């Protein structure tokens, strides 16, 4: 199979969907001639024109609300929020409007929109361009939250997100854009709410999200040399969460580490750990569930500090040894 990047997979998914469905359009800042700040929409203006590739002023609240209003009335907008940090300016429209509308209106109306947004640290953008805010959104009833980790997943999950009749927030880690993987040329769907076992193992389960899936896989490869068998599970979507797959893996390996880039305190990994603790997996566990998450600091600029702020491969390796009492 051919190999393409994460960014290319997302672009291809959008192009193919837009060819099939006239209701889909893109809206966002610098998504036209510039091609998006990370180049994801490169060339799409030439393909679809300015009506469907809507370059906007820097007005996150209004463009988000505009996507909401158009979604309520028959369109399927894909909104690119340039950095997930900028979502904070648009939260009223996401949280108070899009998420609640159907419920407030007694089951009438729907808001089929996708917010694509670059998340996470690693590129030296410092504190206001590097956060991982997925937990904020996962907390809100009415929203769905997706965090793909591979080009294959990104293409298929984006299709499911666009076809979903609810507001879906689609977090794209900046460090993933250039990563490559096998991706079928044709359009396909990966349903929301289905975790993926990225690597099978028997000694310990690492539940990792987004870029941490890649780091967990690297750690697993290292640990294999020591004879430690690591299972890596990627929930892929936080809401809905595939609890069953996570529970099954925990029951199989009896040891669980949850790894996420967001601040460890009250991050989504805490939710996963609690969910497992309340499940039938609890009786099977041979060790307390461990969380590896970001330090409770704004993401610093200096690259050594930046790296130290979030879990790295070595942190995961150390965590595995610790949970196996081999450290």
């Amino acid at each position: 199979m051919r190999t393409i990047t994460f960014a290319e997979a997302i672009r291809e998914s959008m192009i193919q969907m837009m060819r099939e469905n006239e209701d889909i359009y893109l809206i966002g800042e610098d998504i036209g001639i510039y091609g998006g700040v990370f180049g994801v929409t490169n060339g799409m203006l030439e393909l679809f024109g300015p009506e469907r590739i809507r370059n906007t002023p820097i007005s996150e609240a209004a463009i988000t609300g505009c996507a909401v209003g158009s979604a309520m009335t028959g369109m399927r907008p894909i909104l690119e929020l340039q950095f997930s940090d900028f979502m904070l300016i648009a939260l009223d429209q996401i949280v108070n409007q899009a998420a609640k509308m159907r419920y407030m209106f007694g089951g009438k109306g729907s808001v089929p929109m996708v917010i694509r947004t670059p998340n996470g640290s690693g590129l030296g953008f410092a504190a206001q361009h590097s956060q991982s805010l997925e937990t904020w959104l996962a907390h809100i009833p009415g929203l769905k939250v997706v965090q793909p980790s591979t080009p294959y997943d990104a293409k298929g999950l984006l299709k499911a997100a666009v076809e979903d009749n609810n507001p879906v927030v689609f977090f794209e880690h900046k460090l993933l854009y250039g990563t490559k993987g096998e991706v079928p040329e044709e359009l396909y769907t990966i349903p929301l709410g289905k975790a993926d076992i990225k690597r099978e193992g028997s000694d310990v389960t690492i539940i990792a999200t987004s870029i941490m899936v890649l780091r967990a896989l690297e750690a697993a490869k290292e640990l294999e040399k020591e004879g430690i068998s690591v299972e890596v599970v990627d929930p892929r979507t936080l809401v809905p969460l595939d609890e069953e797959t996570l529970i099954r893996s925990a029951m199989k390996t009896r040891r669980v580490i949850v790894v996420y880039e967001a601040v460890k305190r009250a991050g989504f990994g805490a939710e996963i750990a609690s969910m497992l603790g309340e499940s039938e997996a609890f009786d099977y566990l041979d060790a307390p569930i461990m969380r590896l998450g970001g330090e409770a600091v704004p993401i610093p600029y200096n690259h050594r500090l930046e790296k130290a702020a979030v879990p790295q491969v070595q942190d995961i390796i150390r965590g595995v040894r610790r949970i196996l009492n081999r450290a």
Partner: protein
Amino acid sequence: MSHFSNILRKDRDRALYLYHQMVLIREFEQKVEQLFMQGKIHGTMHLCVGQEATAVGACSVLRDEDKITTTHRGHGQCIAKGADINRMMAEILGKATGLCKGKGGSMHLADLDKGNLGANGIVAGGLPIATGAALTSKMKKLGYVVVSFFGDGATNQGSFHESLNLAAIWDLPVVFFCENNQYAMSAPVYEMIKVPDIAERASAYGIPGVVVDGSDLLEVMRVTSEAVERARRGEGPTLIEAKTYRFKGHSRSDARKYRTREEEREWMEKRDPIKKYRSWLAGEGLASEQELDQYDADARKDVEAAAEFAENSPEPSLDLLTEDVYA
């Protein structure tokens, strides 16, 4: 003289229907207040007594397929856009037969079938949504226009400015209708806005801004109809500022310390929209005082029936609690 005076002189049914709608709104609001005082309404309410001509005047020049967004003070527009007052009253009483099954209440009244995209608990929350609904009309060439109602307070929100700019640059078919009722909760316009007329703010976005006497039904019809036709022709948005007054307090707990009783009397005596229109009708010989009294009595009867319907309606079942979160 407004061309609507000529039209209505020749169309007595329509002229009287407008009167009917205005008194229906006032009777409705007075009944809501009464039910509230009797402890039958849980929560709060924001009454639009005194602002009937803006709701009726603006909605009366719309087509069925045109859409509106409203505010926390949105009962009037909801009625004027054609809602069933039985189901409205039931919603305000939180009943299962309500427009939103009792899940939205007064602040989230929506009637999508009639083109009412919803009231809003967030000041200026509806403007971006209206802008998006107008984008749908333009992209799908549906020909409808959206009127977004909001108060003077909303014009100090970022969403107001962002939405006007966005709608202006894209020539969207939306009319921004500001009901300047002189107070944003307790904050008087003259303390919170430096320009004498809110309509002036339109010039910052390169669109027309119009001031109208909000107590004059025919004038409201004239300016709204011009703005709506302009929008329908694809010439973009207009900002209308209707100077009006809420005869009641902001909400249930308002002691009205921020304004004088003299000021209230002045508006109620000189600028009561119903009194003004009534005297125009009588002066034009379109209806006798007795006929108009009969309209008042009929409206009261309809509202009593709505209250009875609402009070006799069942509470929503607890099963509804978790329904309608997702589409």
